[in-house]
């Protein structure tokens, strides 16, 4: 039996590589830094409200105080403590970000895997669906959806964000699935009579580990930014604190004209830091998958080029010109929405 072994280096190999050598991921400074920073915010989100006892909504007579020892981030026009709002808001912002990111990623995996593996008309329909969701600007759609919501709580907002945020990941996962489905081990699995479900989720999906992780991180950034945008517009429940609601109150109370920079600066910086941490983790993962982003390429030039050709060819069959060689960067560099 003459089996030609494709020399293509693809994400499947790279992720398998990473699986075998977990030490490699720790050696990436970017991944480590990003993880630590993100973990700090996660801890603040979890334990913060238990440690800081100041009621973020309590009105006091200390109005419009600049940051001081008593009020670390100053106070608002009605004497509310900005630091307490910030700590309290971290919880909703992080929770909505992570949960919406998770749901969106599950959707991307389902759509991407099924489309990439099934091929034919199923793939065509799912591809067009993801591309439609990519092209339609997300925020106006989210605004229209949120505008009609009878209940504007965190859960509704999470669902709305997940529905609009899955398409990018689905495209990336589909492209990788396409390049995996003709590989020998999948053919072998088919020949041994494994069911489709098992092939998809136990044979193919483990090889998409890093890609799925990267699209999860991208989805979390998207979700945090979108939540901030929705809340800033007053489309979420404005009585629950989140970074976006802080900005909403700052804007509607003219914090700008009151010279109260401490009111609107902290939430924005926090969003920037969390976003950067996620992006750093994403870069770290990219570098694992695509070693050429690390330093000048040496050994893998030829094989990487072949991968690019393969994927270009596969993508040519879909409705959209897609260059997967740029995908890792694509994902990390996708501009925020808010």
């Amino acid at each position, binding site marked *: 039996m003459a089996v030609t072994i494709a020399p293509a280096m693809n994400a499947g190999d790279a992720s398998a590589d990473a699986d075998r050598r977990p030490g490699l991921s720790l050696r990436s400074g970017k991944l480590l830094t990003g993880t630590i920073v993100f973990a700090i915010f996660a801890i603040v989100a979890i334990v913060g409200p238990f440690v800081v006892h100041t009621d973020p909504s309590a009105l006091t007579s200390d109005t419009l105080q600049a940051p001081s020892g008593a009020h670390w981030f100053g106070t608002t026009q009605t004497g509310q403590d900005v630091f307490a709002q910030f700590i309290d808001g971290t919880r909703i912002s992080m929770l909505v970000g992570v949960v919406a990111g998770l749901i969106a990623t599950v959707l991307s995996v389902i759509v991407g895997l099924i489309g990439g593996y099934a091929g034919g008309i199923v793939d065509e329909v799912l591809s067009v669906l993801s591309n*439609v969701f990519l*092209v339609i*600007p997300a*925020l106006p759609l989210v605004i229209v959806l949120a*505008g009609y919501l009878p209940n504007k709580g965190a859960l509704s907002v999470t669902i709305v964000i997940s529905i609009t945020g899955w398409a990018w990941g689905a495209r990336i996962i589909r492209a990788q699935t396409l390049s995996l489905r003709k590989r020998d081990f999948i053919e072998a699995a088919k020949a041994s009579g494994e069911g489709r479900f098992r092939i998809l989720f136990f044979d193919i999906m483990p090889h998409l580990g890093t890609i799925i992780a990267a699209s999860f991180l991208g989805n979390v950034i998207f979700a945090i930014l979108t939540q901030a*945008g929705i809340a*800033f517009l007053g489309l979420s429940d404005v009585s629950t604190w989140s970074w976006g609601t802080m900005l909403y109150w700052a804007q509607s109370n003219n914090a700008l004209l009151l010279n109260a920079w401490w009111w609107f600066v902290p939430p924005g910086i926090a969003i920037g830091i969390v976003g950067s941490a996620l992006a750093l983790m994403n870069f770290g993962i990219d570098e694992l998958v695509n070693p050429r982003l690390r330093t*000048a390429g040496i050994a893998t030039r030829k094989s990487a080029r072949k991968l690019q050709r393969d994927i270009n060819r596969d993508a040519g069959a879909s409705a959209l010109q897609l260059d997967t060689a740029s995908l890792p960067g694509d994902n990390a560099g996708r501009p*925020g929405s*808010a």
Partner: protein
Amino acid sequence: MRYLIRRILFYIVTLWAAVTLNFAIPRAMPGSPVESVLARFKGQISPHAVAAFTKLFGLGSGGIVSQYWAYLSDLLHGNLGISFSYYPSSTLSVILTSLPWTAVLIGVSTVISFVIGTVLGILAGWRRKFWLDMMLPVTTFLGSIPFFWFGLLAAFLLAYRLHAFPLSGAVDSTTLIAFNGTFLASAAYHAILPAGTIVVSSIGGWMLGMRNMMVTTQAEDYVLMAEAKGLSPRRIMMSYAARNAILPSLATFAMSLGFVVSGAILVEIVFSYPGLGYVLFQAVTNDDFPLMQGVFLMITLAVLAANFLADLAYVALDPRTRATN
């Protein structure tokens, strides 16, 4: 040609999807937004608007299919209903008044940021060391903060503190809207801050994409050959590596436009810039559902049009898409 035809078909499908989403969202949402909104107006709404509203939501008689046809035919006739917040103006006229502001603001700033980002990306991909040490942390952070927050900061520092730029609006309140020097100068002056915000916040994304494509093309044999021929590094960079790297970047441009537009909408709100984003905000705060939906459709249409332009540029740059077979 086949490429363009396929793209046009895709846009038609997308437009249909957007139009249908617009039809389905009010009907699929739990509860009845119509009644809650009518209740909120407490009889202070004209019978005319009630009729328009009822029609918009398809509260009238007929099954879902006939409602859908009626909705499509209304759309084709440009009938988007009556706006509540700008009553008695029609939704369409409100949208058409604000569209040019958005089109110019977002169009110009996106093109500027794409061009600068691409050039920086070429340089960064070519001189890898510089990129890693200097640019990555800065662009990552800039790319991660919300556009609108950056706008708030810019407004605070440059407009409120330094008085270098106007804080809000699109022209001086005393300037008449006319096609003359005074108006254009005032409009340009007012647009600097919002446009600058959009450029600075979105530049990193283009830059990163271009940089990664440059890294990929540099490993190609034709770059090696160009080096072997002894061409100047500058020529190799621009005519060999960048020329090929820009194609995927352009394809990403089309995809990413939706994200940029989303961010720009919020920037308009920060600066009270009278474009579609600001109108959308007015619509949201006033529960003006017809206007909200109309703006959504118009923004989608504009993004599709911009995508089409990007496709034309792609066809012009990539001879392979012009293959006739």
